[in-house]
């Protein structure tokens, strides 16, 4: 066995080196943690949607056909339009995030506004579908369950995005001198991108969950 010089406790570093090492590590870690945390949450929560797909699937066995005999299938066009709108919102939100990273506040706010509006229309279409479905069987029950559950998520993410929009507009007004600066303005820029990034990622999630439901609810007959 040779001389042991292993520095088990980091004693051989100077205190400045140690502090620097720590700070860097922690900063990077915080962001990585948030990103991974959101991803894990999304993987987890998509399983709740999968559970409802399983419900939908099993309820089909109670009937000889799906939709059940005598029940009108839901039209395809309106939900397809809704899917398109949601996809547009997703793309806009992603591009907004790029703009924020490039400190381009103007394009960010414009695109973000449109995205929020698109989500609003999407939820509106869902409301129409919710009331349009022919009730009386499990077809409508599970239809309402799934679209309702999904819309709750769309609304929650929409609300979060509205909040971001309000902050961003407030900050713009302050910066342009239209409003007095009381120190509460929240600015989204390349240093503060997490809120926008997470909203955009959650919108991705809402879209993927919707695609799953869209196929199951509208395309999968039998």
């Amino acid at each position: 066995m040779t001389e042991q010089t292993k520095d088990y406790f980091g004693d051989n570093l100077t205190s400045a080196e140690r502090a620097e090492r720590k700070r860097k590590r922690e900063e990077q870690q915080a962001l990585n943690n948030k990103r991974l945390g959101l991803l894990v949450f999304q993987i987890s929560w998509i399983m709740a949607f999968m559970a409802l797909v399983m419900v939908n699937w099993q309820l089909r066995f109670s009937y000889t056909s799906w939709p059940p005999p005598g029940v009108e299938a839901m039209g395809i066009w309106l939900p397809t339009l809704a899917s398109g709108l949601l996809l547009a919102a997703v793309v806009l939100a992603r591009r907004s995030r790029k703009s924020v990273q490039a400190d381009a506040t103007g394009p960010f706010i414009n695109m973000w506004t449109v995205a929020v509006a698109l989500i609003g229309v999407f939820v509106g279409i869902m409301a129409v579908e919710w009331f349009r479905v022919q009730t009386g069987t499990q077809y409508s029950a599970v239809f309402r369950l799934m679209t309702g559950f999904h819309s709750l998520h769309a609304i929650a993410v929409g609300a979060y995005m509205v909040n971001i929009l309000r902050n961003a507009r407030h900050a713009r007004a302050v910066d342009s001198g239209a409003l007095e600066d009381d120190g509460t303005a929240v600015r989204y820029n390349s240093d503060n991108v997490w809120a926008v990034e997470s909203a955009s990622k959650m919108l991705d999630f809402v879209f993927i969950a919707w695609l799953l439901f869209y196929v199951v609810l509208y395309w999968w007959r039998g």
Partner: protein
Amino acid sequence: MATITAPLGSGETQGKRLRVSDLLTWTIDHKIIGLQYLVTTFIFFIVGGALAMIIRAELMTPNVDFLPSGQAYNTILTLHGSAMLFLFMIPVWAGFGNYLVPLMLGAKDMAFPWLNAFAFWLIPPAGVLFLMSYFVGAPEAGWTAYPPLSVEYSPDGQTIWILGLHILGISSILGAINFIVTIKNMRPEGMGYFQMPLFVWAMLATSIIVVMATPFLAGALTLLLLDRVAGTAFFDPAAGGDVLLWQNIFWFYSHPAVYIMILPGFGVLSEVLSIHSRKPVFGYRLIALSSMAIAIIGFTVWAHHMFTSLTPSLRIPFMITSMIIAVPTGIKIFSWIGTIWGGKIRFTAANTFAIGLLSLFVIGGISGVMLGSVPVDIHMHDTYFVVAHFHFVLFGGAVFAVYAGIYHWFPKMTGKMLDERLGHVHFWLTYVGFFGTFFPMHWAGARGMPRRVAEYAPEFQTVNMIVSFSAFLLGISTLFFLWNVFQSLASGERATANPWRALTLEWATTSPPPSHNFDHDPIPFEDPYGYGTEESVVYLDAIEQRFDKPQGSGSPFSKGDALPEPAGD
């Protein structure tokens, strides 16, 4: 031994002694949160155990006499099962995980400290909801809450039960996300996945199961809630619903959930057996990977709980997967035997419980494989044979692991040693009481005694008497443990930083650790179980030098004295 210059620092910060008031405050210190989890869940364990005592008192005679009615019995039974599983067994591992994972990774805290505290504080209200449901007409459909019984035929308590469980599910998901992120992102430099302590591996596998499975519970509970309060009829066949729908979704969660309850216990076992037998874990990689295999296969077996209700042709695939899961579990069992084989086994209370676990779990595992066989399960389903099976794996497995874990980490958590002699009394009473309680149940079940009954055929009276008296012994054994804990907290011997001379990082700081865990970023030893090498001795001596010698009042510490004398013969 070679001459060695061990890195010596001056006095380290010592964690301050914990007070009861610390446990009652909102804090984001993962160690205090861990203790909050442990204390809370242990209280629920006592509650669940007290309910079990009522069950056993009722079952001393074939008629309903101790309790007013069969219904009253069902409520007790439901609360016993729900409390034990959801308020004790699942969150208790979050407690150990919270305390230990950051320490084992040499980190300051979990990845999301605030979320961590939030996840914990969901548990007491959920527990209170569970227990309060008793007063609005307690749930009486068992912990599995099969509809239609849990819908039209159950009182309002069932709704409260659903809400409580919903909250617990959310708590458990949040906790698991936190573990996954912590383990993935916060490992120290030089610790790859295959240098992680096996407890961390186990928490990782468990957390993956939690995040993938628990949303199914949320889905199932939502449907049940809607059927109860919103007029839907997902489970009502008269309206096109399906009674098996619940069973499918529920077990899709609940079978993986039984591995949520045992895998961290397996992690504890790997730590304890290796450290107290002074030998590296045998087949580290296979143990780590078999946890993952169990986690994955565990998602494919759920319908083995439905062998008597499922369409017959669908039963076979689930039988096959249920059988296969014996293989990765067997790998673990044999690897642990390989670990203690040829070692220097020290019969500390922790190790005694760990070895006891080995011998008991294997019985529960074998009865599990028997149940996994469709024809046998058709006879055994919903009998006391099943009750015997799951208490063997849950009590003989998971609870023994909890005890082993507590005896092992108590010095780290509190800075006090537990009394080893009392620990052995606790062990033997528990072991004997356990056997007397749950072993005869196999016979009763196979012979024709169904489970969840308050009245039974008189021919089973004798066996139930034996079971009940053993159960009371088991209850009493718990008192020795509680006494041990209180006595140690009041006047126990001070614990050193590393009383068991373990190589994992949680021991490379004071007992209890300071609030920031480590004064300097610790560097893990190359191999978390590298016992029997000179480097490990150097490392261990360095820890000892650093944390115990400098404070050096009283006895200079040598490695032999650190370990309690072997007990028994």
